[in-house]
Structure formats: structure tokens, C-alpha cells
């Protein structure tokens, strides 16, 4: 159980309005001056099943979830039985089942843990006020708000914003909030929520999910086209960009399949605009031939790979870090490529810009990994960092008339040859997927093949010089040290900050990688030399990133904390592993 954190979980069936209720609630709490993190679970169906929206609330920054909660609001019967056991001692369960049939085990749990059960006939309230069935979620929001004892205006304002273009519905919702709160006025519930102190300035921050920030980053990077195909958890990148299309003027296109998306991205990139695509593991499998194509023709190619558990269809709406190897080894043949891995909303925003610059500068495929945990969780951000300078890596205007066709793939020390765009110069060339000479003409001659092949490979050295070392969080030397990449950073940092404020103080540090392939190892070797208790933390079975580090350095991780059941790392996973209560 994490103190200084209060966790509310709304659970029910898909289609019961859990997502919108969660969003309204998260916004209201943030505006009231608290830091929030929103974690969503939902099944791969449109209506039914188990869906939930969990909001972790704190007075300091948090970017991960607790495994347990302090308040569960169950919209469906099944959700009650599912989430009851997640409650902390003294937790509150609000439900709308008049005759709640708890099993013996459940009753024992309730008794032992002092769970406060609250029945609220939300449906009756909805019918009284003349609303449709789905308004049950808003009534329950009112109940939650009453328990939190926060000023009414925050939730009312959030309702007004959410339903700004539906004034009649807004009126009903405000009544629903009022009625839901009213019913709990005399419930006399005890919570530890008010131990958490609000911070007024926090209201200036904003909520965003990873994909929204990623898409914004792409727009800031000057992307003029996005070609996609729906696949969870990347789909909302297409949705966001389509929503903003009139504002940005970008080409936003749903292609007929992932191969098309990758090829259209390639065509647009070759013709001269920044373009990208986004998919998940299965869709990326289809794109890999195109990755190889761009490795050969040295056309900048940017692809977002939002990871979810495989193999095959796997768990479409859950999270994993299991496609690192897929990204690194994608596309047959040998050629340089770059793999970056976002770790949260701000990171996704920045890495899109970084990725485009790297793709243009080195004329290679760049794959940007995210996962469902980043893509669809709700992060609380103060402000985005300043946008990166756009670096196109093209021959400048003065040089265009001095070009010859054989400049395009000419041998250079860095491995990077001049690049210019169709239409810019009378010197024309062919971007050939066959092995070729400096102007792109086909060659099969041993010496010519060797020369251009090695030219491309020399880019690896240039890339290695350019890529960044990992980030060190905490001090250089600690008692417990973590090595991680991607979204696991958030859980580890939250645990580090939690332990820092407790009498259970542990000196911890984290070495976290965002630019992961080709991998930089200097800081890592230093880290494992200085720190004696090092733990690899990854959301996959093979410890793929650890294996990559071993491949490059020979270092063998003695301890690996690996998770591969579709769930993200919860704070308690780390605490349990370290046997800290």
C-alpha cells in the first residue's frame, strides 16, 4: 500500500461510459490541485466484458499505477467481484446491486479488511431525473466526488467542458452529479484521501495520453503525411491526426493494409515530405520488407511500433515490451537502422521529433517503440519541452546545381551521401532496391558491391556517435540499481520517490535507455561497475534488452524482474520483488 497516494477505480462493462467518466474525474481532480495518473484496462470487444479506469492521485508526480485501490466503483455486477480483492484496508466499494451476493471468501475479505460497502441505486436516480441508462456513470461520479470532499465546482466545470456542445445533456449530467453526491451525504465514510494536500498551481497542468502527445510531436517535427491502418494500441494516432487535419493541413490517410501504409509513407518520404506510419507487432511484421527497402535505397523512414502482447493476435488491448527484437532485426539483409523507445507522453512527443531528425540525417529507417501503457494511459504534464530544430539533412540550395547523378550514393567517410529531392536538380538518380552504384544503376560487380555496402555500413559508426547515452536517475552509486527501457521507467521512478519519503528509505538508482539501437554502452559499463546490486526490469520473457547489452558488452544480468502477462509493472511488483512492505 502506497501512502501519499489515493486510488480510485471505476469498473464495469465496455459501453457503460467508464472511459468518459474516468476522464471527467481525472480532469476534475487535477484541477482541484492533485497529480493524477490514469490507467485503463479494457477487453478486445465493443460492449461487455471488464473495463476499468483507475486514477492514482497524489501530491507529487506519479506516472504509474498501484496494483490496489482505495475506492472501487462497480458499474456492473461482475466488476464488483473482480475488483473487490484489489481494495486496500478500509477501502470503499460503491455499487448499484440491491442484493449483493458475496461469496464466503468475499465476505471474509470485507470483514477482515474493514471494506466499506455502499449501495447506491444509480439507475433509479437516472430514471427519476429522466436520463438515459448510461447516465448511471455520472451519478456514480457524483458519489465519488462526495467521498473525496472536494469543492463541487471542479467536477461541475469538467462536466460543462465535456458536454459543451450538448447543453440538454449537460443539464441532466449536472443534476446527476448533484443527486449522486446527495445520496452519500450521510454515508459517514472514512478515507485517507484528505491526508493528501492539494497544490493550486497544479491546475495549470494538462492531461494527455501517449498517443496524443506522440501525434503532437510528429506535427511539431513537420510531418506532412501520416498513413495508417487501425491496430490497437496505435489506432488513436490516426484518430488524433484525422481530428486535427483541418488545422494542420496534413495528409492523413487510412490505407487498405499495413504494407500500403508503409509504402505510401516511403513514397511521400522519397518525394520529399516528412511522413510516418504507426502500427503494432502484427502490422509491423507486414511492413518489414519495406524497412529493408528503405535500408537499401537510403530513404528516411519513420515508423511507430506500439507494442502489445503477442504472439499473433495476442492480447490486443494489453501491454508488453516484447517487440524490441522484432524492431531491431526487422527487414532481411544487413543495413543500419535506428530504434528509439518512448517512455511516457513527454518522451513520445520528443522522440518523434528526434526520430525524424535521425531518419533524415542518416537516411535510415527509424523505428519508435511505444506500448499500450504509454499510448493509452493518461499522463499529467506540466508543459512540453521546447521543440527540436528540424534538421532535414538535404543538399542546400546553393549545392543543387552542382550535383551529378553519381553524388546520390557516392562513397563518403561518414557513410552518408548527399540527398536531394525529385524536382530539385537536373541531376537525376534512381533509388534502386537492387544493389547499385553511386547513381543507383544496378551493379553485381564484386568491387562495386563491396564499396557501396561498406559505405552504408559506415553509417553505423556515425549513428553511434550521434545517439545519446542512457539517463541516470538517482545517484551514481546506490544500494539497489535498475536498468530499464520504455515505460517501466515510470514504475521504478515512482517507487524510488515513494521510498525516498518513507522511513523505509532505500538508496536506489535507475539507468534508463531511450535511444536503444545501436546501443551505447559506456555509461552502462560504468554503472554496473560502480553498483553492486543491479536488476534488469523488462516487460517480456527473454529479457530482450538485457540480451542486447550482453551481446555488446558481455555483461550478464544476475537478476531480472520480468513481466509478461499483459499488465504493466505496478509499484507493488517492485516492492514485492525487493520484499519491502
Amino acid at each position, binding site marked *: 500500500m502506497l501512502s501519499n497516494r489515493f486510488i480510485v477505480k471505476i469498473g464495469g462493462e465496455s459501453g457503460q461510459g467508464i472511459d468518459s467518466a474516468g476522464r471527467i474525474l481525472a480532469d476534475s481532480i487535477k484541477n482541484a490541485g492533485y497529480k493524477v495518473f490514469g490507467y485503463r484496462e479494457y477487453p478486445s470487444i465493443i460492449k461487455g466484458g471488464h473495463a476499468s479506469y483507475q486514477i492514482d492521485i497524489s501530491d507529487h508526480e506519479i506516472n504509474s499505477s498501484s496494483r490496489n485501490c482505495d475506492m472501487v466503483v462497480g458499474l456492473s455486477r461482475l466488476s464488483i467481484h473482480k475488483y473487490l480483492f484489489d481494495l486496500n484496508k478500509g477501502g470503499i466499494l460503491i455499487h448499484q446491486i440491491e442484493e449483493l451476493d458475496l461469496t464466503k471468501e468475499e465476505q471474509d475479505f470485507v470483514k477482515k479488511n474493514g471494506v466499506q460497502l455502499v449501495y447506491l441505486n444509480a439507475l433509479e436516480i437516472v430514471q427519476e431525473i429522466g436520463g438515459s441508462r448510461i447516465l448511471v456513470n455520472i451519478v456514480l461520479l457524483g458519489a465519488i466526488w462526495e467521498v473525496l470532499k472536494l469543492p463541487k465546482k471542479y467536477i461541475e466545470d469538467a462536466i460543462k467542458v465535456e458536454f459543451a456542445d450538448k447543453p440538454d445533456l449537460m443539464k441532466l449530467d449536472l443534476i446527476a452529479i448533484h443527486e449522486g453526491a446527495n445520496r452519500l451525504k450521510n454515508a459517514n465514510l472514512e478515507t485517507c484521501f484528505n491526508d493528501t494536500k492539494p497544490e493550486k498551481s497544479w491546475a495549470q497542468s494538462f492531461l494527455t495520453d501517449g498517443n496524443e502527445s506522440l501525434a503532437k510531436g510528429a506535427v511539431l517535427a513537420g510531418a*506532412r*503525411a501520416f*498513413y495508417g491502418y487501425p491496430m490497437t494500441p496505435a489506432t488513436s494516432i490516426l484518430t488524433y491526426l484525422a481530428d486535427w487535419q483541418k488545422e494542420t493541413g496534413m*495528409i492523413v*490517410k487510412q*490505407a*487498405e*493494409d499495413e*504494407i*500500403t501504409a508503409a*509504402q*505510401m*509513407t*516511403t*513514397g*511521400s*518520404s*522519397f*518525394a*520529399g*515530405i516528412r*511522413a510516418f506510419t504507426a502500427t503494432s507487432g502484427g502490422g509491423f511484421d507486414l511492413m518489414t*520488407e*519495406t524497412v529493408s*527497402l528503405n535500408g537499401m*535505397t537510403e530513404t528516411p523512414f519513420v515508423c511507430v511500433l506500439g507494442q502489445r502482447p503477442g504472439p499473433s493476435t495476442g492480447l490486443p488491448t494489453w501491454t508488453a515490451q516484447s517487440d524490441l527484437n522484432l524492431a531491431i532485426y526487422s527487414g532481411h539483409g544487413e543495413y543500419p537502422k535506428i530504434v528509439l523507445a518512448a517512455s511516457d507522453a513527454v518522451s513520445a512527443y520528443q522522440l518523434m521529433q528526434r526520430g525524424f531528425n535521425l531518419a533524415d540525417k542518416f537516411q535510415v529507417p527509424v523505428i519508435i517503440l511505444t506500448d499500450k501503457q504509454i499510448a493509452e494511459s493518461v499522463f499529467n504534464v506540466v508543459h512540453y519541452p521546447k521543440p527540436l530544430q528540424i534538421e532535414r539533412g538535404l543538399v542546400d540550395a546553393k549545392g543543387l546545381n552542382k550535383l551529378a547523378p553519381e553524388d546520390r550514393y557516392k562513397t563518403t567517410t561518414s557513410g552518408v551521401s548527399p540527398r536531394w*529531392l*525529385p*524536382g530539385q*536538380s*537536373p541531376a*537525376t*538518380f*534512381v*533509388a*534502386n*532496391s*537492387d544493389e*547499385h552504384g553511386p*547513381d*543507383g*544503376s*544496378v551493379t553485381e560487380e564484386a568491387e562495386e558491391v563491396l564499396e557501396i555496402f561498406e559505405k552504408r555500413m559506415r553509417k553505423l559508426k556515425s549513428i553511434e556517435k550521434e545517439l545519446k547515452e542512457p539517463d541516470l536517475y538517482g545517484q551514481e552509486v546506490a544500494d539497489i540499481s535498475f536498468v530499464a527501457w520504455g515505460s517501466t521507467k515510470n514504475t521504478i521512478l515512482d517507487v524510488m520517490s515513494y521510498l525516498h519519503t518513507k522511513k523505509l528509505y532505500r538508496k536506489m538508482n535507475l539507468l534508463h535507455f531511450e535511444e536503444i539501437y545501436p546501443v551505447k554502452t559506456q555509461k552502462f559499463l560504468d554503472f554496473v561497475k560502480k553498483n553492486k546490486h543491479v536488476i534488469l526490469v523488462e516487460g517480456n520473457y527473454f529479457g530482450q534488452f538485457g540480451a542486447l547489452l550482453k551481446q555488446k558488452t558481455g555483461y550478464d544480468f544476475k537478476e531480472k524482474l520480468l513481466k509478461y502477462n499483459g499488465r504493466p509493472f505496478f509499484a507493488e511488483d517492485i516492492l514485492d520483488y525487493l520484499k519491502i512492505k
Partner: protein
Amino acid sequence: MNDCGGCQPTQLDDFLGGKVKVNDYFSDNPLNWCTGCGNYGILAAIKRALASEQISPQNTLLCYDIGCNGNMSDKIQGYRHHGLHGRVLPFAAGASLANPNIKVIASGGDGGTLSEGMSHLVNSVRNDYNFTFLLHNNSNYALTRGQASATTRVGQKMSGRSEPVSIPPVNPSELVLSLGGTFVARTFSGDVKHMTDTIRAALKHQGFAFVEILQSCPTYNKATPHTWYQENVMDVCDIKNYDCTNYVQAMKVVDPMEEKIAIGVLYVKK
């Protein structure tokens, strides 16, 4: 007669006398197709058509599929891309969307276009992307040594199969027309003048300009050489009152049945 542009013969001066000349497209690289391959004629027609329209190599993007068609990619000037088998259409779509100021011409064979990339053909027609597509239809997979393709005639014994072809061939022009193609034309590789005129008409079209080029393949398709095509084609320019904006008329004419194969600009959506 409604002439959609294929019936006005190109004059020598069109590609020799202007600022852009046909030899601007000349490449030093030796040509290496089989003797009698239809690609020699197609290459000549592409160069003539571009020069006649005064489109310079600097402002041209030629996209190629993998196949004998693609071996043209380093035998001509202009910006060029030689990409993946079956995927030239989405590549050209992305390129034409990105830069509307350059002329995009995609080439693909019957193998890549009607098998590997069939979905891309359907979607290029549906989306009416703005570029010219030349289908080099030689009725087999020539570069991989003579397997049957979707347009190989029934009864042909081809490589990689124990029995002769038994499924009736696809009629690519009919397919495109039926999907709502806004420009459908057919020509054959033995007639450089006809190809030049047809490609010029395609270059002028706003939208997806589909040109089926019936192509000779002396190595793997002995059934329909150039002489056979010469005897079996019929130009719609020679049909009295042929209205190329008439969809019903075009649908009748696009499938030869027992009669001649119609060539020329068959249909343009107005």
C-alpha cells in the same frame, strides 16, 4: 466521335523540336532485355511521350516494380525508384500526394500488379490517385523465368505448374473500368506511335490514368507475339461515333469476346 486524346498522332517535332527533347532521357547504361522484348518499344514511347509533353527529367518521377519492367529503371533519365514487387502503386500514390508538381509515372507487370499487388490496384482505382500507371502485360512472370500470371491464357504450359493454365485470365482493363477507373486505355508494345499517343493522353489526365500495354515476350509467350497483336487489335479511333465518355460502350468494347482487342483510350470519366 468523342476523342479522349488518343487519336491525334504525335509528330516528330513534338519530341525533337521543343526545349525538352527525347534524347534528354537517354542513359548510357546498355539495355539488356531479350531480343524482341516489348520493353524496348515501351521505353521509346515513354521517352517520346514525356518529351512531347515538354516534361523534363528533372520533373519526372518514374516508379518501377520488380520484373522485366523494373529493369528499365537505370536505362532512362528522370528521378526513379525501383521498389518492391507488387508495391509500386502505393509507393507512387504516396509520392504523387507528397509532391503534386512532379509527374509521377508508375510501371508494373502483370505478375506484381494482378497477384502480389492486386489489392493495391483496386485501391488505386478507388482512390483515383493522381498518377499514370503503365501495366506491362506480357502474360507471364518473365524475370523469374516464365511462371503463369493472372493474364496467362488458358491452356498454356508454364513453369512451376504440372498442368496447363485452367483458370480464365483476368482482363485488367475491364477490372479497372468496372471499379470506376477514371481513365482506361490499352495499347501494345509493337506500335511505338500508338503507345506514345496513348501515354500522352494518360499524362494529361487528372486522376489515376491506367494504361494496359499488351507486351510481347518472345522468350516465354510464343502464343501472342507482336505480329499476332497487329492482326488482332482494333483502334477505337476507327470505330465510328466511339464515345470514350460512354461507360456502357466502353464496357462492351473492353472485353474482346470473339472479336478484336480494343486499343486506344477506351474510357475517360468526365
